[in-house]
């Protein structure tokens, strides 16, 4: 039962990804061509409001539903990891026209071929685990 809330938030996420056309390959292409404000407006407004959320968490004005303080685990540091990993991710994002969230939402839309992309992404995560000690971080 404790997982139902995550399922419901996931449904909200899936609907907004689809209804705002974030799962459209074309919207990603258009973004990287700087031909529309749409995606920048979405990410920009989400981050702006996100900053306010973070402020509320850090000032302890909002706690979890169980009353615990909200601790935000920091991301791992490392110039090579973030920059090179980011570039590789960006190449894939612009080719697939989908980052991991939208990939799963596209299953719900009935796009069979996205399963190949998701298989590739899972394989990519596996290959990272396999080679991670041999690449710079």
């Amino acid at each position, binding site marked *: 039962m404790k*997982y139902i*809330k*995550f399922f*419901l*938030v*996931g*449904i*909200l996420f*899936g609907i907004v*990804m*689809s*209804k*705002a056309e974030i799962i459209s*390959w074309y919207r990603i292409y*258009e973004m*990287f*061509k700087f*031909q529309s404000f749409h995606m920048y407006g*979405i*990410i*920009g407004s*989400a*981050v702006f409001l*996100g900053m306010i*959320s973070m402020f509320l968490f850090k000032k302890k004005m909002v706690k*979890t539903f169980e009353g615990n303080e*909200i601790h*935000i685990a920091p*991301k791992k540091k490392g110039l090579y*990891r*973030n920059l090179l990993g*980011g570039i590789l*991710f*960006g190449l*894939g994002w*612009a*080719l697939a026209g*989908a*980052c*991991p*969230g939208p990939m*799963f*939402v*596209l*299953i*719900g*839309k009935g*796009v*069979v*071929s996205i399963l*190949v*992309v998701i298989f590739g992404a*899972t394989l*990519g*995560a*596996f290959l*990272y*685990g*396999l080679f991670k000690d041999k*690449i710079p971080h």
Partner: protein
Amino acid sequence: MEFITQPWAWYIAGPIISVVMFLLFYFGERFGVSSNLETLCSIGGAGKFVDYFKIDWKQNTWNLVFVAGAITGGFVAAYWLSPSDVVALNPQTVQDLADIGIMNAGATYLPDEIFSVDTMLSFKGFFILLIAGIMVGFGARWAGGCTSGHAIVGLSNLEIPSLISVIGFFIGGLVMTWLILPLIF
């Protein structure tokens, strides 16, 4: 209902995504989709080959449930909330895509030249889908996050690693869009 069934503007979508992030924190978790890819590897038995995947994946069950919800949401939106599949693109985008061999841009959400079943079943088409996925999966785990974890949560939290990663996302995306895509189709 028209408010719901027409495409949602950025100033509706951005705040809702922020609410998604807020709710996950409120429920004690950090928004981030790409870590599910590692969880899938662990469930699939990758821990037998690589120690990195020897984790207690059950602690990530919430995130898999979130993904199941996202798939469901995609279904709900596609079948009940979207009478039209047309994406109102910038006419210049449509022209640019026609110039590189992708026709009827915006008639549906996805180009047939990449996502149709016929394309998927061709050698080149399958390879493009697979390699795109591998780059996303490898890159996201190398960088330690994807658009949700880095661009939304990380930037909101003013984290330098996320800023560097997002700059990387854009370098890669621009190279693919401007230099590589014109050569593929």
